[in-house]
Every structure is written in structure tokens, then in C-alpha cells.
């Protein structure tokens, strides 16, 4: 709804102010949530802050009138990747009370800050912030390439990229399954304790028999 509200080209100052306020809030949310992601001790909390950051980025896309990207962001990042991350955290709970950051975290901080400062600070300071108004009638909406154009692009100019992305996804799917695969005999069903015991006995017996055969062969 907010999308349509913002999209309406009213050519009215308060509307711009509203958009600026919304943008400021979104930017604060994105940066704040991202900061929490890297600094918070609890990994689950970090993942939840990451989700908040993803969601705010989706909202930012909406203010940039990229509806399709925004929805895909929600669908893929919030709906799938964050769930994957949460699952991974829960399957690999590390013990509590460990150090959060690596030994050389200050180097990482220095690199990040240096990058931000060296590349962007001069820009921020030296830049004049009044951008020229777009030419043409204010009330007429700009023609934006929509989802149909993107679809057409996928099967025309970007067809190779599209297929490579498809292959990448397939490879990732198969690769992920292969990497995380567990032996079928263990995964099939949860064995009772007695069954586990019996199974271990049998495995041991088989191993002994094999070694005996090997000894005989020698």
C-alpha cells in the first residue's frame, strides 16, 4: 500500500518530506540491524537481526520503485535464505561462552573502516547534495521497465546468463545434497538403543570376519 502511496506523482513538497523520513528510517534500520548482526553475541539473535536487515532492504527497494526485486528479496532472502541460516545454526549449536570474534578482529575493523573512510568520506564531505530535478513534466510518471521487460530480457539478451544461473542453481542443489548427505542406514529411521547395540555388534562381527579373511589370504 505504501508503495502505491509513494508512487503517486503528486508533485507536492510534504510528499517528498515523507519519502525522506521513510528513507531515513529504513537506512537507520538497515545499518543498525547490520551492526547488530556482526556484534551481537548470540548467533540466533544475529540471524534475526539479519532478517530485519533483509526486510529493510526490501523496503528500500520499494522506495526505489523496484517492486519485483523487493518481492523477490522477501521471497528468497527472508523466506528461504534466513530460514536456511536458522536451520544451520540450530543443527550446529556451538557451546556458549566462546569468544565472539577472531583474535585479529581489530584488523578486520581497521580494513572496513579504512575502506569506508578512504573511499567514501571524501565523497561525502566534498559532494554537493542538491541534485538537479529531472527534466520533463513533474506529474508524468517515468516509464520504468517492469517485470514483463525483465522476463523478456531473460529469454532474449540475457538468455546465456539465465541459463548459467539455472545451471548454477542445479549444481548448488546437487552439491548441497551431496555435501550434507548422511549415510542412508543411519538416516532411514531412528533406531532404538537395543537396535543400535545389535547393529554395532553385527558391524563388529563383520569387521572381524573380514580381517580374518584378510589374514587367511595373507
Amino acid at each position, binding site marked *: 500500500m505504501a*508503495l502505491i*502511496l509513494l508512487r503517486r506523482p503528486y508533485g507536492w513538497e*510534504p510528499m517528498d518530506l515523507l519519502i525522506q523520513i521513510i528513507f531515513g528510517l529504513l537506512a537507520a534500520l538497515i545499518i543498525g540491524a547490520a551492526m547488530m548482526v556482526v556484534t551481537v553475541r548470540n548467533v*540466533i539473535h544475529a540471524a534475526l537481526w539479519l532478517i530485519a536487515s533483509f526486510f529493510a532492504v526490501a523496503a528500500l527497494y520499494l522506495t526505489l520503485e523496484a517492486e519485483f526485486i523487493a518481492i523477490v528479496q522477501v*521471497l528468497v532472502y527472508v*523466506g528461504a535464505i534466513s530460514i536456511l541460516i536458522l536451520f544451520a545454526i540450530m543443527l550446529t549449536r556451538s557451546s556458549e561462552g566462546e569468544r565472539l570474534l577472531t583474535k585479529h578482529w581489530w584488523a578486520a575493523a581497521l580494513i572496513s573502516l579504512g575502506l569506508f573512510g578512504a573511499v567514501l568520506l571524501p565523497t561525502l564531505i566534498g559532494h554537493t547534495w542538491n541534485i538537479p530535478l529531472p527534466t520533463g513534466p513533474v506529474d508524468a510518471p517515468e516509464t520504468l521497465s517492469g517485470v514483463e521487460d525483465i522476463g523478456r530480457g531473460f529469454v532474449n539478451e540475457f538468455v546465456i546468463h539465465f541459463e548459467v544461473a539455472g545451471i548454477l542453481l542445479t549444481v548448488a542443489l546437487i552439491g548441497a545434497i551431496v555435501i550434507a548427505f548422511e549415510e542412508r542406514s543411519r538416516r*532411514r529411521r531412528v533406531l532404538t538403543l537395543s537396535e543400535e547395540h545389535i547393529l554395532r555388534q*553385527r558391524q563388529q562381527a563383520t569387521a572381524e570376519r573380514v580381517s580374518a579373511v584378510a589374514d587367511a589370504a595373507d
Partner: protein
Amino acid sequence: MQDVVNQVINTSFGWGWPSWAIALIGYLIVAALLFGIAPFQMLFLTLYERRAIARMQDRIGPNRVGPEGMFQPLADGVKIFTKEDIVPTAADQWVHFIAPCVVVAPTMFMFAVLPWGPGMVPVDMNLGLLFFFAISSVSAVGLMMAGWASSNKFALVGAMRAVAQMVSYEIPAVLSLLAIVLVTGSLSIVELINYQGGLFISTRDVASVPDWGLGWFIFSPVGFLAFIAFFIAALAEGERTPFDIPEADSEIVAGYMTEYSGMKFGLFYLAQYVLNFLLCAITSIIFFGGWQGPGVGWLYAQAITPVNPQGGWVFNVLAGVLGVFYFLTKTYGFFFVMVWIRGAYARLRIDQLMDFGWKFLIPLTLVNIFSAAIWVGLTKWGAADGLAFVEGWSPLVRWAAAFGVTLALNLGAYLFLARIFAQSQDERARQDDDVLEQLTNVA
């Protein structure tokens, strides 16, 4: 809505407010209406379900509070409001607190793109369908938060199950809709409904068909198979029996809701029923034409619309009432089917659920997308698109050919996959039996 607000404020009162204020007021009114209606009708959905399932079990159901139990949901609501809110000491307080909100909020967002009648849609987004499903996947995060923050093993297991199920069944749901989107060529829900005018055959496929508002997708083989797959996936998304393993009471107490009480529990309950309502609504919109039905199209053509400014406002009202009536009838009908299925089937095991989703529904929907491509080719393409041989055929013949080919393809795929799936399940059961037998023999 904005037209009405503009009419009232600027024309009737003559205040001359700016258009952005009018827009804001219009949106606020619509939002308030939806936020009011959603929990209220959710309350009555619970009554509806309880009465219907009672009938299926040869009982009567709650009929004591008010006439025919009409006020039972209100009594339940009052009860849930007055209950103590218990937060476990071991719980993660903040996450525990936010989780119900994260579950409820997306379901409320989904109302934003839901058309209730002709011209009665809060936001006619041209990506409505995608928006609907993207937002619905957000509530999985809330479930995960609830399960984790409760620091209760039942809650965590329930949340894991719920999320795994939602993520897995989103794929067949979206793939089955993809077939429909291929046919309509649009992601807009309004456009999807407009496509379904006609009589058994859509007017967009064969223009000569009379528009009785009955050209629903369910009447085409592509739509029918998509409907079956989508409805099954919707059952799984809404955590309805037989896919209610996230809250399997006999195994894991109440799943992710175990550690919730009072109004927070009520919010989960609300989210669940609102989601069920929305899934029924979207099923009726996509496959059964939403508000399409005999008479609505004609009435709306006489009404005041941007296309037809010379209409009569009476027709607006009539078309709206009839359209909403058709829409709600279909929606509540699907809710009845959900209850019916709940009355009939036992709960699946988690591995059966995953097998069914990944090994049966997804291949089936993939075949269906192929069928949809054939349908589009035979009904819409011509020599310019590389299908010269259909050029001379009349639209009806093209439609009949498409119907026959897709029917054969879908039916064959369904029977083949069903057979393969049954065999694999039998094989699996036999393997399980063998393992067990071996173990017992050794013992």
C-alpha cells in the same frame, strides 16, 4: 474507496482537501476495515469449523452460547483475553514477545492484494500473486522464532517441522500457480479474475463464448491439476490436517505454541485461521474465478467505473454485493473442504509428508507447467510465434485441441506418477520391514 472519500469530502462538504490527503484517508479506511474484519471473521471461522467437524462426527457442536452458538467465539475470545500471559524464565524474552507479531503481521499484509468484488481491491498490484506468496513465507520466520525462544524441545521440534513443511510446500504451490500465470500472462490478481469470464471456456481463449462469469480455470485440465496440487500445498502451508504435524498434539503437545498462553497464543491462533481463510480465498480466486459468476460482469459493466463514467451507482452496489457474495460463498466452501479433509484423513508422518511434496507434487506441477505451455501455444500463438499449422483453425477447434492434449498429458502424468509414488512407498515400507526383521532375527 478514494473516489468515495473524494466525493464525500470535496464534493459534498466542499472542503477541497489535497489529493494526497484524500488518498491517505482512503487507504486508512480500507486498512481499518480489513484489520477489523480479519480477526472478527476468524472468530466465526472457528465456530464454522467446529460445527462442521461436529456434523461429520455425528455430533452437533457448540450451540449453547447465543442462537446456534453464534456467540461462542466471542466467549472464547473473552476467555483468551483474560488469561494470564506466562513467559518461561528460560525463554528468550524479547524473541518470545515478538514472535507472535511476526507471525500475525504477514497474514494481515496479505489482505492488501485480495480482491473482494469487482473493483473492490485494496491495492491492484501488478505483482499481486507474487506479493501474496512472498509475504506468506515470512511467517515461517516467526514460527522459528517462537519455537526457538520458548526453550522447549517440543516447541523447537514443532517449529522445525512447521518451517520445513512451509518451505517445502511453497515450491509446489508456486509451481502450480506458475502454470496459471503462463496462461494468463499476468501476475496481477485482478487480471487473473478478469481472465475467468466466459462459460466453461474463458472468453480470452475463445472470444465468441458468452460471458456468464463461469470460464474458471478449474474447467481446463491445466487448471484442474494445478488446483489439486495447489490445494494440497495450501493445506500444508496452513498446517491443516493431514499436514498438521507441526502441532501434532499427541506427539509434541502444541508444537511451537506450547509455551504460549493468553493473547499471544490467541495471536497464533488468529494467524492460523486468517491464513487458512486467505488460502481458501486465493484458491477460489485463482481457480474458481473469485467474484466471477453469473450476472456480476453485466452489472459491473453498467456501473460507474473509470471505463464507464456514465453508469448508475446502483449497479456499483449490486455488482459489489453479488460479487462479494460469490467470492465468500466459494471461500467458505473451500474452508468446508478443508474441514472435510480434516474429518476424513489421519495425520501424515514427517517423512511421508516430505516424500509426497518432493516426489509427487513437484514433478506433477512441473508436468503441468509443460501442459500450460502447450495450452498457450495452441490457443494463443500463431505463425509469428512459429506455430504455423494452427493458423487456419477456428478458436473453438484450437481450444478443443489444447483441451484434449493437455488432458491426456496431465491424466497420464498423474496416473504414472501416482503409480510410481505408490510403488516407491511400498518399497520403502518393505525395506523398513526388512531392516526390522533382520534386527529381530539377530536378536
